[in-house]
């Protein structure tokens, strides 16, 4: 486990090697473990709906994902969250839950845009 990192597909680069097989929602093997990622795979991840992959070694960018999200992205994450969440946080722990959820949604927006830009 120490030699593996789970990274978002926006950070996957050619030359990395899969530590775990990629399997789709129907149980079909997309790529076996140890596959060396090539440029052509990067576009396929979007088509396959993959969010994260396990790679061998440490992620190149070890900074937490969340620290790379801009205020603009976080604002868009909040707007997206507000389409489904109509209550307001009532205390510190619900504030923390909201912040974590906004980061997740902002990160998904970033990922979508990175993928669209790379196509």
């Amino acid at each position, binding site marked *: *486990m120490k030699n*593996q990192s*789970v990274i978002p597909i926006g950070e996957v680069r050619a030359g990395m090697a899969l*530590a*775990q*097989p990629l*399997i789709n*929602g*129907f*149980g079909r093997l997309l790529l076996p473990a140890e596959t060396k990622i090539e440029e052509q795979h990067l576009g396929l991840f979007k088509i396959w709906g993959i*969010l*994260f992959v*396990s790679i061998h070694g440490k992620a190149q960018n070890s900074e*937490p*994902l*969340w620290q790379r999200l801009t205020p603009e992205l976080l604002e868009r994450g909040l707007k997206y*969250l507000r389409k*489904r*969440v*109509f*209550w307001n946080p*009532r*205390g*510190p*722990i*619900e504030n*923390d*839950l*909201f*912040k*974590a*959820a906004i*980061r*997740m*949604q902002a990160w*998904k927006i970033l990922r979508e845009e990175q993928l669209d830009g790379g196509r």
Partner: protein
Amino acid sequence: MITAEKILQRIDEFRTLPTVYTALTEAMNNPNSSAADVAAVISSDQAAAARVLKAANSPIYGYSGRIDSVNKAIMYMGFAEVKNLVAALAILDVFSNVRISAYFNPVEFWKYSAAVGVIARALAREAGRKGLEHCFLGGILHDLGKLLLYQCAPEEFSQALQTVALRKITLRSALKETVGISHNALGELLAEQWKMPPPIRAVIRYAHTGMNDDKPDELVAAVHIASISAQMFGFGSSSEEIVPEPNEIAWKTLSLPDNIFTKLQEQIIQDYEGTLDSLQL
């Protein structure tokens, strides 16, 4: 229109869980059973044994590639974890033929359910709770009634989901209008038929309230909070648009640290991805 009575009749007809799970339950409930006995039960079902080994070697347990027998899997993962995994896989098999519709995607639903299991377990672990070994399975099964309804009354279930989307009401309210019974109550009946342990049945019946029949309950509270968190994080799809407000008593029951989600977020993502892999989702 199908009635609650007809759905309840269908529960009686519903397939039983695969033999390996019922045999495993018997072996694990027998005080004279050894780890070797339990391993023998799992090993008697080749598919179950292979999936247990695959899960045991996945990154979430940290023993990658080193567990080559069911005996070792039990030793490293523990009885309860192996049993919960076999149960989750058995139930996935029972509902493996459920098809995607405009209002319900079973694969996304299982992803959401797996996320609830992962988050409930992470919250309980972080809070230092003991005796919460049912967190993972309880999380995975808490919305079992939705799958049952989708199998037994697809038209009424889809109609209820449309009503939820249009009128922004809860699925429970919509189901009471269409079939006269909630998915929580139906799920509990199925869990009872499958002889699931009482804590799991309580989660299925009451996780949406955050309390066990109006009484504080750590397991029910953990799954309640995990369910809301999974929906807010966007893991899979619960099939319901609106994310409910957490019950304040559930927060009090768990007494979690204020920054728990920030602290656990990356770990939860890793465990979620590993669990999807283990469950082949």
